[in-house]
């Protein structure tokens, strides 16, 4: 009878394990859209000079990650605000990175030159990074703290004030 008992426990334990895992997954797999509190998926993308950069390079300091394209009017609108805030806060450790939405390099270069953007611009290809982030709208901006955790996600254009407020909270929490 003792042997039966341990078999009984084993069966229950295995079922609890499999069942628990399956049920647990049903909480997690509610789509691949990122939420505040998540860590963004890693990427490796080329900048305009053709040099590769990874997400890990930006760890340790707050980061604004902005997905944009020249075909999207609100993206074009908010670009000067991002540039302005980058200049204002970069000495405090703020990093701003713009990820272009898989357009041709010369398109991106022309636009960047015209606006006078000085923060790094990375080029997505084949919409891969965009998909990994589960992007639904353009532009989408991720405010990531020094620990690499997403604090806020904003879809749509940001004004200088809106960025300022969020950067202050990012730097404050670091």
């Amino acid at each position: 009878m003792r042997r039966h008992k341990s078999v009984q426990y084993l069966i229950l334990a295995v079922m609890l394990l499999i069942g628990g895992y399956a049920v647990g997954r049903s909480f997690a797999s509610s789509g691949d859209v990122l939420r505040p509190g998540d860590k963004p998926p890693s990427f490796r993308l080329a900048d305009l000079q053709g040099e590769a950069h990874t997400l890990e390079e930006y760890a340790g300091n707050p980061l604004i990650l902005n997905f944009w394209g020249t075909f999207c009017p609100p993206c074009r609108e908010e670009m000067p605000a991002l540039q302005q805030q980058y200049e204002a806060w970069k000495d405090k450790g703020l990093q701003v990175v713009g990820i272009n939405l898989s357009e041709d390099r010369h398109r991106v270069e022309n636009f960047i030159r015209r606006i006078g953007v000085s923060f790094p611009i990375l080029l997505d290809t084949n919409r891969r990074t965009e998909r990994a982030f589960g992007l639904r709208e353009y532009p989408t901006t991720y405010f990531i703290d020094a620990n690499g955790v997403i604090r806020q996600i904003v879809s749509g254009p940001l004004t200088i004030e809106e960025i300022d407020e969020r950067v202050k909270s990012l730097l404050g929490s670091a």
Partner: protein
Amino acid sequence: MALIQNTKCECGHQNPVGTVLCEACGKPLDEELAASDSVLEMRYDGMARRSQKPHPNLIDRIWNFFSSVRVAVWLILITLVAAALGTIFPQESAFVNLTDPAAYYRENYGTAGAIYHALGLSRTFESWWFITLLVMIGASLVICSLDRVLPLYRALTRQQVRKHLQFITRQQVVYVGPIQGDAEAWTARFAEILRRKRYKVRTDGNALLAEKNRFSRWGPYVIHIGLIVFLLAVLMRGVIPGWYMDEYVGLDDGEIEQIPRTGYFVKSLGFRIDFYSDDELPEHLKGQLRVKQFTTKAVLYECVAYCDDATREPELKEVAAHDIRVNSPLSYRGLRLYQYDFAEAPRLISVRPTLVDKRTGQSYGPFELPMRHPPLTYSVGPFTLELRDSFPEFGLDENGEPVTLSREPNAPAFVFVIKGPGLPEEGVPYLYFPREADRQRFGQDRINGAAAEMFDIRVMSMEDVEFSTYTSYLNVRVDRGMPYVWTGAAITMIGLVMGIYWNHRRIWLRIDDGVLSLGAHTNKNRFGLRAEVAAALAKAGIEVDAKMLDNRRKES
């Protein structure tokens, strides 16, 4: 039933608590049952189930909960109702691109839709509570089966030949009557008759046990194993990465796209719609366009190098090619690409324009200009064209600045700087619209001004234009759980056949002082068993009407 039950039988066998019929001799243990003469309930051969034990602790209680058939029936009913609710409106997962589900359900199905979404029923089949129900059904299947199959197995493998008289005479099929001659010789002769009827027979002096098709008793448990395999396969599909994928890829002719989250790329060499010709159509449909076939000529590539290197183009190797038609997917190592949809979206793929020097009347070229990822420089005769900017869908923003409205080449425009003989050092800028309609709409010559006086870039014939009429949508699926789902289904079917097409028949007899007592039991088709017993008795010289063997007739 008394709380403390005497489980020791008069034959001397010590039975576990909950036993109905003595494990050894089959005598009814319950006093009330022993006093009556009703037909015995032979379920699980009267064995105690695993869960029937005194003083259950917490683990036992959990075990007992899942071992209950009543609980199993409730679980199945609740799951059925939940699954039915999940089909009232389409599930969220049925949509390819649903950005705001709440709004969608509200707009399309009104208040009911809003409530449906708010309750989470629009995601029924992925919800934690539905998965919990499935897991509980799985647990119930396993525990219900184990709780019954082990005692049953034990009972059937340790059967004693000589049974209690009450056990024999209270079976469904019973015969009691005198016999002539030696009891042991009669038993041996009857054993031979039963063997010829493919019974496995054991004798113990003047007692006999004949049995056939015992395996049919395992049918229900084989069904349960099949269902468990089935359930596990479905659960694993959602759990193990790479086991299940359901993605969509839209391709223009000639376009190549990466299949999301894989190292594979798919290229369309062209999408085609074939229509039925008039002589293939019945009279009333003649002259109408009826689709016969959708075909995407597709090539599948695998990335072999620089797959994650953003600074280089990935190196691709062709691994499969197929003309994808409805129900004829491209299939490669578990990856399947199905024809899913198409859209009429005329788009340029590339043009081969000619550069005309209006000053001399000379024309140069043609040169190849792809709409996607165009090269930056072009040598055309003595001239060099440098690409300064390109707009997949040309338009003007609110300030009148040229912008692209999308990433798709719907209205492509190219800004070249032409350099060469007789031109200033810095070159002459020239805006080129490959599509004639755009050229007129945006006024190419007006924008180019003086440059339009010197040059013209245009396509000379339709042969120099490559375009795509349709966007083909492919459904990319991976479902590695399917073989296991089929295995589970096959096992279930085997169990079903085992349990339904065969039935377990047993005959017990003993001869006491020249009186034969015979009892027989089956789980199905008692009529067949009665006929078989009557035929065997006839061969042994006892003529009896099969109907007269039915023990239940006494009750009515």
